């Protein structure tokens, strides 16, 4: 029960994973060091910057302050799970097209926060976008390009009137 390691089973980017984790290990550390998924960044390591953002059951979380064993039974999406079959997700395309990526350290977190937002709210106001990204800090590009990338992504993801349905 309180052994030093703990077996967890969870869905990681759509695939079932079982792994033994140290009970005091954070999710970010397990993703990067045990599972080799280096897309998740760690910067402040204290819940402030959002570089380590992942989705747990569709909601954003700072993986640097979530115990790995808390995701037992959950579905986790990291940046590696956003592009499908080698094809970039429209949010990723939009970040590139708007020049919203410089050093790229904040980008995985920005993209996952954007995904969580647009999955629930396909047509957010600028205020809603700012609120959804308030936990993601960028030191490089300036936030305007990121805001533009998010609205471009929202446009791409919205069904065009007349098409479908």
């Amino acid at each position, binding site marked *: 029960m309180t052994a030093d390691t703990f077996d967890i089973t969870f869905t990681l980017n759509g695939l079932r994973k079982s792994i033994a984790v140290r009970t005091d290990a954070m999710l970010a550390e397990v993703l990067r060091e045990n599972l080799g998924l280096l897309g998740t960044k760690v910067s402040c390591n204290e819940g402030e910057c959002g570089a380590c953002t992942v989705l747990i059951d569709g909601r*954003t979380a700072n993986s640097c302050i979530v*115990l790995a064993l808390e995701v037992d039974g959950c579905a986790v999406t990291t940046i590696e799970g956003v592009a499908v079959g080698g094809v970039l997700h429209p949010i990723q395309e939009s970040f590139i097209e708007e020049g919203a990526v410089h050093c790229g350290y904040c980008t995985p977190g920005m993209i996952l926060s954007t995904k969580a937002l647009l999955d629930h709210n396909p047509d957010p106001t600028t205020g809603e976008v700012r609120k959804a990204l308030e936990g993601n800090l960028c030191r490089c590009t300036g936030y305007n390009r990121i805001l533009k990338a998010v609205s471009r992504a929202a446009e791409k993801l919205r069904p065009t009137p007349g098409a479908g349905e």
Partner: protein
Amino acid sequence: MAQFRVAAPRTLDEAFSLLPIQDRDVKLVAGGTDVLIHIRAGKSAPKRLVLLSKISELDDDIRVTDTGIRIGALARLSDVVRHPVVLARFTALAEAAAQIGSEQIRNRGTVCGNVANASPAGDTLPPLYVFDAVVNLIGPNGRRAVPIAAFVQAPGRTDLAAGELIESIVCPFPPDGAGSGYIKLARRAGIDISTVGAAAMVCDADTVRLALGAVGPTPIRPLAAEPLLGAGLRDDEAFDRGITAAAEATTPISDIRASRDYRLAMVQVMAREAIRLSQQRSTSKDRVQA
């Protein structure tokens, strides 16, 4: 060697058997957004963490009952922010939760964790004081219910006895037509913790409730000032006296976020704004006629 060990009990009985003899050694974890940060910052060094998330008797529901709402131990801040009944009837609570940390923090952090943490700047506390919330505790010796103002005792200290935990928090419905609001002053919108926080509720033409955060060791409900503030809804001079009386009930300190004098000045501004906002939101017929 692990820094600490973690237990994930499946039942309350199992949890009680793991709970403290000495509370420094064992820490409960809900969302972990305070506990894990405190450990990392060296503010606490528990030997064992006990997770609440897998305990079958605890829930993350926000339930609407005949008399009010019940917020389960594991209910997240982001669920409170979006809950339609909280938004409509307990607006100040939704508004306070919405201003905690970031979306990531609100998706993990819980209301009950914010309360148990008992920070003078805890943002959900002033609204819970205004709504006369009651904290339901459960322990190996049974249950008890404690009013929020008696539960929070000092920075980081609560009425929780060794082995007890918060099962839920309930808020009775405010009177029909009541309006409420929460205003937070911080150096930076979001993420930052409050320099001063003010929650108010206004109903009828003469009833005001007010609670002030980060201006004393615990949130302060200036009960003596509330009748003046109520009368002040229709009498500017009484309102000013009420605001002065409310500020006199506070005991702010100087710290890295602000000086005592700044807080004393700002608490008056914040209290005024919170009451005005609540009044605008209240739909009392009396007020409209007045």
